[in-house]
């Protein structure tokens, strides 16, 4: 049997591009001309495994796991600098969101363990109260993601608390049931 260490087509996922393409806002992705404006504009470009431009070429070529397991998507801080500059008007930030969701759903968010923990806790908070409750969010997040690093958060917490900026009690919206009904309906629709 011959052997050559190259990337074989059989290991690539050629449906990945269309998967992203078919999402609302994903349409422009096929138009990328690999100019690099996004990477050059990204504040985190340097620390990412692959800067945004390369993410697009990886998606095109079908390197599904490389994309979903990269730290890139978790380093995106949603500043939209890339998206606002992209000459092809690709909604880059929105694509990053889509990748985050797929990664979380498929359990590929290893490098985004903390970010996904924070996001999930945030969602739990909103679903519970209708609003975010900073204090509880941070407490839950630290417990679930960084229990050994809890002390790190204390000084900031104190600075907020001592200046009267950290309410201890959550605010629950009156019609939380309505919000939940809406969410439940979305859930049903997404299932279909």
């Amino acid at each position, binding site marked *: 049997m011959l052997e050559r260490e190259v990337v074989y087509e059989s290991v690539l996922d050629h449906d990945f591009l269309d998967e992203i393409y078919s999402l609302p806002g994903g349409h422009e992705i096929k138009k990328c001309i690999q100019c690099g404006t996004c990477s050059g504009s990204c504040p985190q470009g340097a620390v990412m495994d692959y800067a945004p431009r390369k993410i697009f070429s990886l998606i095109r070529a079908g390197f599904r796991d490389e994309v979903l397991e990269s730290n890139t998507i978790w380093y995106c801080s949603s500043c939209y600098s890339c998206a606002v500059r992209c*000459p092809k008007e690709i909604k880059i930030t929105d694509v990053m969101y889509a990748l985050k969701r797929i990664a979380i759903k498929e359990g590929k968010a290893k490098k985004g363990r903390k970010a996904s923990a924070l996001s999930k806790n945030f969602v739990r908070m909103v679903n519970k109260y209708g609003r975010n409750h900073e204090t509880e969010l941070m407490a839950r997040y630290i417990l679930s993601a960084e229990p050994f690093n809890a002390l790190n958060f204390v000084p900031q917490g104190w600075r907020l608390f001592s200046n009267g900026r950290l309410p201890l009690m959550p605010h629950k919206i009156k019609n939380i049931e309505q919000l939940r009904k809406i969410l439940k309906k979305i859930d049903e629709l997404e299932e279909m």
Partner: protein
Amino acid sequence: MSERIGVYVCHCGTNIAGRVDIDEVVEFAKGLDAVTLVREYKFMCSDPGQSLIQKDIEDGLINRVVVASCSPLMHEKTFRNVCTRGGLNEYLFTMANIREQCSWVHVDVERTTDKAKGLIEAAVRRTRLQEPLTKREVPINPRTLVIGGGIAGIQAALDLAEAGKKVVLVEKEPSIGGHMAKFDKTFPTLDCSACILTPKMVSVGQHENIELMSWSEVEDIGGYVGNFNVTVRKKTRYVDADLCNGCGACWEKCPGTRVPRKGNVHEKLSIGPTTSIYIPFMQAVPAIPVIDADTCIRFKNGKCGICAEVCERNAINYDMEDELIEFEVGSIIIATGFQTFDPTPIKRYGYGKLDNVLTAIEFEIMNCASGSTGGNIRMADGSEPKSIGIVHCVGSRDKHYHEYCSRVCCMYALKYSHLIKEKIDAEVYEFYIDLRCFGKGYEEFYDRLLGEDVRFVRGKVAEITEVPIEEAEKGKLVVEVEDTLVGKVRRIPLDMVVLCTGLEAHESLADIAGLCSVSIGKDGFIIEKHPKLGPVATTTDGVFIAGACQSPKDIPDTVAQASAASSAVLSMITREKIEIESATASVDEDKCSGCKICNSLCPYLAIKYDEEKGVSVVNEALCKGCGTCAAGCPSNAISAKHFEDRQIFAEIEGILSA
């Protein structure tokens, strides 16, 4: 004689047959009223296809023709000619477009076939009611108007003049020459731009067949092919052209200061005098100065008059006014050229804010040996840059600005690299997305540059900043860019950055196009008659295009198109007569009550009210057949020939029946 319609269904290879069930369509057509003959053929437009129709007409089998094939915009003319050759009036023919608007755009064979049937039935029903129309011919005025005196206009005007035809060349600037007059060298051969352009400019100025109207603008165009009426505004120069001998005494002594362009610290870069009375550059044709009234001291406070004093020929006249000149021509060549994209809106490139960020045109003038820097490349502080970045695709290939590729930037950018390397000892970076070196000798030029140690970085520049992070960046412009081939974001400190601004349609083009009734595409350029087969003609007969008014072009392509346009004009003039639209509107005087509703509807003023008869009358020579008046006529007295109500009603019935 009853109607005997022949229906000819074209396969167009598989273009139609691949999506439309031809057999079914043929069977269907056979069953339609008045259809006496149905044939199918692989390519109706081919010689054998055409002969098929011609023979059927000649044999007396049919007296009306329907061809179901491509778009009438493609082949209506072809098949009309077939009818004429066969001895049938060409207006007894209709095309059913079952390709562009049917087989090419739909997927489902059954439904596409159904649609084809509907379109054919519509055509058949309409054809039954069509009436023969007589061709009209009008004489062609052999004089031509050329709008724009850049290299395109110059070339077109000279070609025509050399053929012995009269030309009026209108240029809105004080001199002809256009952008090419500002260039030092031209790619890829590096010829001296002035050396090749100046002789042509001089011939224009001296040619007995060319009437040059510089510092003039076209105000109005009326009429139609072969017979256009043109009104030109000759702007006042405040200098009598008949007296002035171009000695230059006036601008040498003028105390006023004119700013050639607004933008940044380089706004005074100029290839001509920056005085208030000026010629745009030394080789100007005509070499007659113009007073810039905005900066002239005389016009500001009446306190000067030096130019008039020094003029030995008393050519200065501060009271001169604009003149309107009217004349007639038979054809028009639009050669309004381009303007460069203004990069000010792209804030992240800092143009206008960062002194040493220049546009391509500024850099071009800076390089021009006869310009204000004497061809020396200098920073705002006068010193020589040690490193220069050249940024490609500024305003091009970008949905926020222009989606198209400006086509010339890659090559002029490479030319800059070469000029810089030739003139000074500086590092040069080319920041590009793709290098498009497609013309004759272009790739070879790129190859040459690769050997000249130019640093190529593949990546669109994200940002140009003056905020340093490293010591070496202090006092420099820093380009942030992803080097996409390396996959790293780089920061590159530079002394000067040149923005390769794209080409866009000249701001005057939309007005000119409106005057000539030609369409502008969404890119802002003129839409040619056909992108491949009619690149110099427009949708308006008698109006042709040359150069960058059609799309961004380099000099060789522009010159080629200009010559093509002039030869198209020549072939038209040589015919001396031209057929014009027969499908005009006409008024049935027995029905018209003279309500005057139609009188204001005609954009060509072809409808006049006849006081004596008390009815409105259409001047068919002026009518272009739009049919607006017919639709507005409340009494059905006006009919739009070939688009009569009953014909369209029949079409509606047909299109909905199958």
